[in-house]
């Protein structure tokens, strides 16, 4: 089999799983989760085969494409279902299918007692298929299909426990906020079509790079793409859905945060690099969004007592790093993707660890009611701990390599901008160390603080089953070694360079100074957290806290802002529109309908059932017909 023709298999396997599991009915209840896991694994295997095949080729020949069929063949409008597998897509494919498979495996144990488990695995497979379609499409229109598919799957999964009103609301919120971003993407695609007459990657990107397109148009396209990325990747101002999305089962959170969904925005911007390179204003907007979100997420993460929400804030912040890096242009793309992959490992590990903790603690999420769990769950503690060290950038672990490079690239931007960005990324690193240490200390160290709940069921913390711990262990390996492996001889940068281009940044201060600074701020963050949460006992009920803490607990008032600006404003708008609709539109419509109905009733009476009346009407009709014909001649 030709390797090109295997690309479709990547998507086909999880898609088949989704169809089989969702349409298969109850008879698959007992085997469904294994079918789903196996098909995800099959996709991973195909991915590995394609990867080794790709490694065996020269760097120039590594791009594969497969044309499946013509989707909408109309003159002047050609939409194809065709795939493109290059180094960038390959990276994503391995991440999505690899981490995705581990999460599938973990879910086998985690969802063991859920009676809708088969459906859950169907949705997971659908999620993978949509995400793979997104990264494998060779044009923006097909990418949009995957993009929407990811939105749908995330909606289904976040709201999986739909019997909980909070979950249903969270799903709706995620979907609606994402729609705003989706509008951006659709407008961007429309603009591309009017500007370039196509939406295939090749022509669009080469035309953008060629430089004969007006910068204004490219800036518009870039900003719309950025809006899209903000929606999927939970960047300010479209970040508000991410925290609520924790209502979904924990494996879903892991999947959304590590392998799929939030990475889509980074992919989109990296893929469209040529457009952004040619539109500096759009690029600046990307950097600003990334920098703001980086701090925003970190501050929120510092204040949350809910373990999953603290991790969600952390994701937001880390994705902020990546978006910032993509905004830096060719000096940043590879590091954005590198951080994305290492983050995929340690964030998946952290979430699965959090799920494991919750599993042993009767689904309690409040870290103030944990404490001292390291004795009860050693494996979880160890893997979570390695993930923790990786994310704060402990020297030698994955996060250190990738984050340090982003900080270097930020300084290398040069000028005032470079100093500001460098400072922001350093501050982010300090905050990361602080909130992650806080999570670590509150959960695994200190006195045990859990108490029996209202019905008197005291939690009995215990280690999770093998199906859950094995994926965590595997991910912990990734958290430890991936970064170092990628940085060896700049192998990752060399691998991605043909797709994204790569330039060495030249920071105004030496790399050694930056690395020292990074380690210093990290130690400061850890120290502060230790002083606050390690040396003093943690109160079971949260103290009132400063103004900033309280604001951060409320996600820095983002929901309040949305409520005041969008919800209230929207309500006023809809109310006035409803008024117009009721009085004016309905008046006209109902009036027309009523008069047509009345006319109908009256005309109906003409049909009185007497053949003689019918004959008269025919006679009259014939007379009129003849008269009219003669009249036409006369005039």
């Amino acid at each position, binding site marked *: 089999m030709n390797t090109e023709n295997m690309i479709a298999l990547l998507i086909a396997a999880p898609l088949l799983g989704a169809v089989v599991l969702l349409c298969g009915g109850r008879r698959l209840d007992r085997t469904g989760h294994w079918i789903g896991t196996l098909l995800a694994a099959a996709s991973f295997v195909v991915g590995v085969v394609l990867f080794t095949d790709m490694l065996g080729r020269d760097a120039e020949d590594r791009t594969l494409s497969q044309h499946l069929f013509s989707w909408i063949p109309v003159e002047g409008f050609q939409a194809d279902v065709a795939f493109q597998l290059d180094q960038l897509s390959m990276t994503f494919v391995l991440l999505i299918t690899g981490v995705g498979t581990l999460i599938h495996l973990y879910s086998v144990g985690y969802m063991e007692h859920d009676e809708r488990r088969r459906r859950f695995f169907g949705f997971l497979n659908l999620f993978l298929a949509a995400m793979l379609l997104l990264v494998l499409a060779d044009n923006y229109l097909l990418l949009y299909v995957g993009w929407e598919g990811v939105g749908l799957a995330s909606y289904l999964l976040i709201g999986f426990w739909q019997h909980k009103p909070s979950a249903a609301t969270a799903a709706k919120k995620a979907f609606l906020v994402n729609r705003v971003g989706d509008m951006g993407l659709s407008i961007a695609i429309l603009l591309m079509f009017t500007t370039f007459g196509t939406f295939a990657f090749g022509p669009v990107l080469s035309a953008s790079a060629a430089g004969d397109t007006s910068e204004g148009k490219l800036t518009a396209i870039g900003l719309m793409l950025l809006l899209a990325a903000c929606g999927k990747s939970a960047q300010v101002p479209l970040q508000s859905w991410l925290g609520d999305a924790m209502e979904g089962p924990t494996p879903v959170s892991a999947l959304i945060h590590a392998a799929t969904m939030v990475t889509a925005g980074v992919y989109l911007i990296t893929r469209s690099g040529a457009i952004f390179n040619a539109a500096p204003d759009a690029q600046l907007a990307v950097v600003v969004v990334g920098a703001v979100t980086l701090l925003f997420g970190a501050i929120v993460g510092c204040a949350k007592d809910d373990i999953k929400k603290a991790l969600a804030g952390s994701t937001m912040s880390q994705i902020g790093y990546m978006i910032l890096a993509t905004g830096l242009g060719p000096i940043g793309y590879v590091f954005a993707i590198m951080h994305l992959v290492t983050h995929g490992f340690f964030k998946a590990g952290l979430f699965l660890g959090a799920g494991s903790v919750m599993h042993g603690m009767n689904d309690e999420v409040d870290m103030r009611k944990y404490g001292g769990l390291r004795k009860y769950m050693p494996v979880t503690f160890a893997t979570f701990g390695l993930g923790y060290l990786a994310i704060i950038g402990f020297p030698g672990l994955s996060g250190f390599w990738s984050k340090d490079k982003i900080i270097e690239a930020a300084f290398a931007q040069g000028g005032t901008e470079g100093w500001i960005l460098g400072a922001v990324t350093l501050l982010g690193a300090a905050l990361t160390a602080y909130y992650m240490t806080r999570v670590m200390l509150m959960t695994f160290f200190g006195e045990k603080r859990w108490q029996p709940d209202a019905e008197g069921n005291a939690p009995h913390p215990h280690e999770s089953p093998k199906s859950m711990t094995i994926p965590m262990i595997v991910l912990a390996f990734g958290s430890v070694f991936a970064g170092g492996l990628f940085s060896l001889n700049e192998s990752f940068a060399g691998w991605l360079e043909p797709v994204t281009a790569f330039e060495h940044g030249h920071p105004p201060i030496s790399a050694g100074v930056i690395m020292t600074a990074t380690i210093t701020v990290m130690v400061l963050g850890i120290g502060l957290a230790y002083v606050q949460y390690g040396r003093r006992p943690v109160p079971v009920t949260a103290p009132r806290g400063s103004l900033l803490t309280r604001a951060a607990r409320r996600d820095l008032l983002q929901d309040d802002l949305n409520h005041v600006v969008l919800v209230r404003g929207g309500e006023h708008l809809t109310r006035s529109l409803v008024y117009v609709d009721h009085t004016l539109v309905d008046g006209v419509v109902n009036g027309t309908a009523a008069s047509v109905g009345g006319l109908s009733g009256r005309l109906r009476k003409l049909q009185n059932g007497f*053949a003689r*009346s019918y004959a008269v009407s025919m006679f*009259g009709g014939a007379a009129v017909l003849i008269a009219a*014909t*003669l009249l036409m*001649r006369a005039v």
Partner: protein
Amino acid sequence: MSASAVHSLWTTAAEPVSRIDAPHIEYGQLSPILIVVGAGVLGILVEAFVARRARYHVQLFLSVVALAAAFAAVVGLAVTGHGSTKAGIVAMGAIAVDGPALFLQGTILLAGLVSLFTFAERRLDPVAHGKQVDSFVAQAGAPPGSKSEQAAVKAGFTTTEVFPLALFAVAGMLVFPAANDLLTLFIALEVFSLPLYLLCALARRKRLVSQEAAVKYFLLGAFSSAFLLFGIALLYGYAGTLSYAGIAEVVDGTVTSIDPALADTMGNDALLLIGAAMVLMGLLFKVGAVPFHMWTPDVYQGAPTPVTGFMAAATKVAAFGALLRLLYVVLPGLSWDWRPVLWGVAIITMLLGAIVAITQTDIKRLLAYSSIAHGGFILAGVIAMNEAGISSVLFYLLAYSFVTIGAFSVVTLVRDAGGEATHLSKWAGLGRRSPLVAAVFAVFLLAFAGIPLTSGFAGKFAVFKAAAEGGAGALVVVGVISSAIAAFFYIRVIVLMFFSEPRPEGPTVAVPSPLTMTTIGVGVAVTLVLGVAPQYFLDLANQASVFVR
């Protein structure tokens, strides 16, 4: 003086009688018509000579084979180029064999074939005295409610004459759109009308309504035939000939020789205009255009439902075919005169059909008004006066036939103790009890409403496009408005079926034999295929859109 010489004083030897030439008949080109007529005649013989219990099967077999064979003959003619390059006029100028004729004949034969299946359906009515019965009366001659009727029912009689009657009707319809002179046109009209009058009277249940419908149809039909015939006479007076080409020559002023006997009237435009209007009226009656539509609801409601479906589909195809040929072959030179008039007719037909349908409470009457509105839409295509007009009308007729037959077939399935439950209130909640039947009916209703992905949309789009290109933009606007009005009552039935609570004493859905299932299945299949992938059939209609003259 010899006797012979004397004789010669007051007699003279006749010229030797010149041989009467046998008319030249192209049997091959006429074979579709001849097969159906022949099968009809055979059917009569079957009625006379075959034992009663075997008749149903023999008749069904004979009719199906005849229609299928005739269709095969049409296809054969089309494939061998008789629709395009070898199109011609046969049977001494009486019949035209060309693209439109073959396309319409094919449509009529297919419509007739699937209708015939519903004629033969014997599983819907409850078994009477141990015998399966169809939709037709046991013995047509027995007065309703009489002892002789009861005796006939008890004896298990069935009216197998419907099969030859249907074949004769089909034969007439085959000739109608192909007729190439006015006399043939008239004969064909009567050949298909008379069996239809009879068929309308043969309902097994609600016989009085059925007979009333037949009498009305007959009276009004005869009335309109009279107009048609008078119009023909006037046109003869105008042109001195009945042949289409001959009249067209006079209209165009290209005629070379004038019959001295007719010199006084020939070329008198008053005769032409009045005659043309009257002939048009006769055809508009058959297509059910306003104001000649009034028979439609009563007859559609009273006739046995299989007959209604057949009539609504096949008659319309035949009549629009004849109308097209008349307007495009005989009267194109007069188009400045008839186009505005037909504009008016089309507009009131579309609007009245759609508006009055809103307040109907009987599903068969509703479909009758819907068919009136559709007549208006097709007229819009006829008025286009371009090649696209012809092809779009051909396509529309094909699409509409199968939707109509399918819809009426579904009506035969929904029954209560009194036979078919045609009152709309009884259809409430049908979707909950019989989702499949309701869904199929919904497909047909959506096709009637012209929703995309159904044949109705493709047809309507083609017709309106042709009309707009032909300069009838205003007509298209009215057509779209009427479509919007019409969509209301189609969708209302869907809402009624799916979103209303079923009534406890509501009707049941009978399980039909494979015959009706075939009809409905073919209906759905054609509706969806013509909706999703209409291009092949549009191309076919395009190739068939040139009349021979």
